[in-house]
């Protein structure tokens, strides 16, 4: 029996995550549609539940009930299996994420490498999905997205290597602790690395402005064309889980995991009170809006949401109010840590959405050119830059604030140089004479 | 107008002004030559429109109407050529490439054959359609029932 004991807590926690994930993914979709609407001078889904809060559940039910069409000439086994592969790959990657100091399914010694390896399996799901549905459009879409994933994984990997140099360890927990010791978040130390990772992660999750594979205007939804109903929902779930995974890697690596901003300086301790206050604010908003809802059940639901927020606020206040050294106080780091981690993931995903609505779509060849000729060399230079600054700091004992900005400056110069040369042959026209091209700033 | 008369003499049928717009009626067989002349010397570099009008009662049934426009002189000219029932005419596609689709449409609607056209097929109606709708003898309610029944499966033809 005792052999099982060490497994109980991770398995339990894994079950919680796997159960919650579809719900979380659904609500991310809702938030995306709301933010998109807000940016486009409209309201977004309002009909199902107060302010459209029940929309994800309605979507899920609809998708479950939809007729599951399998094209005649499709390869049955692969058609059935492909979405499963991509969903499992996405969910497996969640295992090593440090939501909080205690909430971590498995503190693997090779945490980050594990996440990278597993998420690269996601390509199979997409590629096989395109092949199995046996239509010209979906095959083209599948090949394109596979090529895109492979090429942007290299630059994402190099950007992560840059940050790992600073952290010194691969285990995700270790990285966050390294950041808390150093007192700096790695985003300030390796900003170029963060920028490259941001761009590469957008490309890796097939989101705009790199969403070539499911570009509506040409390939009619890429590899997902033939899927419908529940299978399509699986692909969608995989995409959003990937987004969460990528956002949490960024949060762990660059934004200091579960640490409160300015964790060490005493002056900013009032920030501890921010999470409960935020929750109370949301609860107040819900209660004020509840009576104004048109339908009775929506009123009730709005009130329930308000109640939920109050409970959350209580949980967050509890470790602060209780006397310093009691057992409950020690759980403060855990609960607050979780809040801050999810907060950072949320901000990162908001940036994803923001980019999605402002930028038009890259053409596929521009996408690949940007990937290989600009991002990959830049990330290599970034790793060298960090290496130099680390060497200066550790070997020659230059003070911190001199060596790191120097490293960043070196990377930026190289980046600018790359950008200028990169622009020359931009137009793939057949028989195109050499046009003069004004270097367009980044 | 006078320059045209001097240049082509016999070929020019009549030159008249209808509602202050210059019209030249020419013999159909000299069409290509006059077209090239009007583009090169007279700088009518824009073939605005090419269409046909069906006068069933006359023996030269169709008159082919070309509307030209000169960007430089800001002038319009309309050349009309009279054509018999199934009398082919030379294509002006070589002079103005835009005539390609315009001639295909006139062929589609009136049945006038243009010799030397790159791919003279029906432009708007499906290839297998019988009959030329814009002819006066083609009744407005008439349809190619055979094609409709065979392709769209509508029995009544309406």
């Amino acid at each position: 029996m005792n052999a099982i004991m060490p497994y109980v807590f991770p398995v339990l926690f894994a079950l919680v995550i796997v159960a919650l994930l579809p719900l979380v993914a659904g609500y991310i979709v809702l938030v995306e549609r709301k933010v998109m609407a807000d940016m486009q001078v409209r309201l977004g889904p309002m009909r199902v539940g107060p302010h459209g809060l029940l929309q994800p559940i309605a979507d899920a039910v609809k998708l479950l009930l939809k007729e599951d069409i399998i094209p005649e000439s499709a390869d049955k086994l692969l058609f059935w299996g492909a979405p499963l592969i991509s969903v499992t790959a996405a969910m497996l990657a969640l295992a090593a994420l440090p939501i909080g100091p205690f909430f971590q399914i498995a503190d693997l010694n090779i945490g980050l490498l594990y996440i990278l390896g597993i998420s690269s399996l996601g390509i199979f799901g997409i590629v096989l999905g395109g092949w199995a549905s046996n239509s010209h459009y979906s095959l083209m879409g599948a090949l394109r997205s596979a090529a895109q994933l492979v090429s942007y994984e290299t630059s994402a990997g190099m950007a992560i290597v840059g940050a790992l140099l600073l952290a010194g360890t691969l285990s995700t927990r270790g990285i966050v602790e390294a950041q808390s010791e150093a007192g700096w978040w790695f985003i300030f130390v390796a900003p170029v690395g963060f920028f490259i990772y941001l761009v590469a992660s957008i490309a890796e999750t097939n989101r705009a402005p790199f969403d070539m594979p499911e570009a509506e205007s040409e390939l009619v939804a890429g590899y997902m064309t033939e899927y419908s109903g529940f299978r399509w929902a699986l692909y969608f779930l995989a995409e959003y889980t990937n987004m969460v995974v990528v956002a949490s890697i960024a949060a762990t690596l660059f934004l200091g995991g579960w640490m409160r901003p300015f964790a060490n300086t005493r002056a900013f301790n009032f920030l501890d009170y921010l999470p409960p206050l935020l929750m109370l604010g949301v609860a107040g908003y819900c209660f004020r809006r509840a009576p104004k809802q048109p339908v009775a059940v929506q009123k009730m639901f709005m009130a329930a949401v308000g109640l939920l927020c109050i409970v959350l606020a209580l949980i967050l206040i509890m470790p602060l109010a209780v006397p310093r050294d009691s057992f409950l106080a020690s759980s403060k780091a855990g609960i607050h840590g979780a809040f801050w981690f999810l907060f950072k993931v949320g901000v990162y995903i908001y940036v994803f959405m923001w980019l999605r609505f402002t930028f038009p779509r890259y053409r596929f060849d521009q996408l690949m050119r940007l990937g290989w000729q600009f991002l990959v060399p830049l990330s290599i230079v970034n790793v060298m830059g960090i290496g130099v600054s680390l060497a200066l700091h550790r070997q020659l004992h230059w003070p911190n604030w001199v060596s790191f900005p120097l490293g960043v400056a070196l990377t930026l110069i190289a980046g600018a140089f790359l950008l200028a040369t990169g622009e020359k042959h931009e137009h793939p026209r057949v028989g195109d004479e050499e046009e003069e091209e004004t270097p367009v700033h980044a | 107008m006078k320059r045209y008369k001097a240049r082509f003499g016999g070929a020019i049928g009549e030159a008249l002004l209808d509602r202050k717009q210059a019209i030249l009626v020419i013999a159909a067989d000299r069409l290509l030559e006059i077209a090239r002349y009007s583009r090169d010397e007279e700088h009518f570099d824009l073939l605005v429109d090419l269409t046909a009008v069906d006068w069933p009662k006359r023996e030269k049934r169709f008159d082919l109407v070309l509307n030209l426009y000169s960007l430089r002189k800001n002038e319009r000219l309309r050349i009309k050529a009279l054509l018999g029932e199934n009398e082919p005419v030379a294509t002006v596609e070589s002079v103005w490439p835009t005539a390609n689709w315009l001639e295909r449409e006139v062929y589609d609607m009136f049945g006038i054959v243009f010799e030397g056209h790159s791919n003279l097929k029906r432009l708007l109606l499906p290839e297998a359609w019988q009959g030329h709708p814009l002819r006066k003898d083609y009744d407005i309610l008439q349809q190619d029932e055979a094609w409709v029944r065979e392709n769209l499966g509508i029995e009544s033809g309406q």
Partner: protein
Amino acid sequence: MGTRKPGHRERTITGVADRYNAAGTNVETTVLGADEIILNMGPQHPSTHGVLRVKLRLDGEKVVGSECVIGYLHRGVEKIAEHRSYQQFAPYVDRMDYVAAVSNGLGYCEAVEKLMQVEAPPRARVIRTILTELQRIASHLFWLGTHALDIGALTPLFYCLREREEILKIFEKYCGARLTTHAFRIGGLQYEAYDELEKDTERFCKGFDKRVDEYESLLTENRIWVGRTKGIGILTADAAIAMGVTGPVLRASGVQWDIRKAMPYAAYDQYEFSIPTGQNGDTYDRYVVRLEEMRQSRKICLQAIENIPAGPILGKVGKVLKPPPGEVYHSIEAPKGELGYYIVSDGTTQPYRVRIRPPSLINLEALDQMIRGHLVADVVAVIGTLDIVLGEVDR
């Protein structure tokens, strides 16, 4: 067709499907490895602005050749014209280019007035000019929204439609209809201008300049937008003239020609406005030209509102129109290009022949030349930049 056994109905429909190949599904694809693929951007394709089918011959990703199959929306407008009286035919004209119905109506009414050698009163001409310029802004807004959507920018569409809504409200207040307005009569106007027409137009025009700057900020300097449009679908000046292309597409190639300046009609000769032109006739220049045209139209509207002359709104035109036999060709500057009407009358109340010169059809003819050597994604951008409306192409 799912697992059900194909009944009679399906058999014929599959027959049709083979002939009219739905988007992409049953594509006459040669084996993937072979060099040439025929890809169908079928009639129901999300970005072909209506029922247009383009058969693309691809070498890998590059377009080698293309052939447009049109005629899906052919309603035989010209045949109907021969069986309707002059006034009865006016509403049909709005249904052709349904995005810019007012300018179609203007073209037709002015052509018939020219046929009957009747002049519309000054008040009617000024109000016609205001409404046509508003319609041009609305048409360009709709073009900008859908064009940006095709290339992937989701937000501009809603900004443009928000402005277009203002204009459609003005039309609705004036003549009760938003889209197919049938606002003009032969010889003048149908309705007197409602009293706050000037105020509404002024409010719209005042705010509009700031709006166009908004679009500029969203797209013009946007590096991805420039990357996707610069140097795509190049049409040199003489190629454009040879292909008979007119309107913003011609002006973007550097040819300074606009019927409103060359042969002023309605009240355009009273207003001062400039004609924007581009240099190298690529998608980016067409975008800049149309954006500038919107600004110019706004300028015209503002000038026109200052002095709308008083007086009658309908010329000396009887109930029954019997134009003297003869023919006339009259063209106006529609948002898409030169919209011409060639009307032949034989003295009866019904026109003998009405030929409509569709700018979209002739601009579409240049498509094949513009997309050679480009990628599939660019074909969508070029179709968007030509601003074609299939109702007008097929008539």
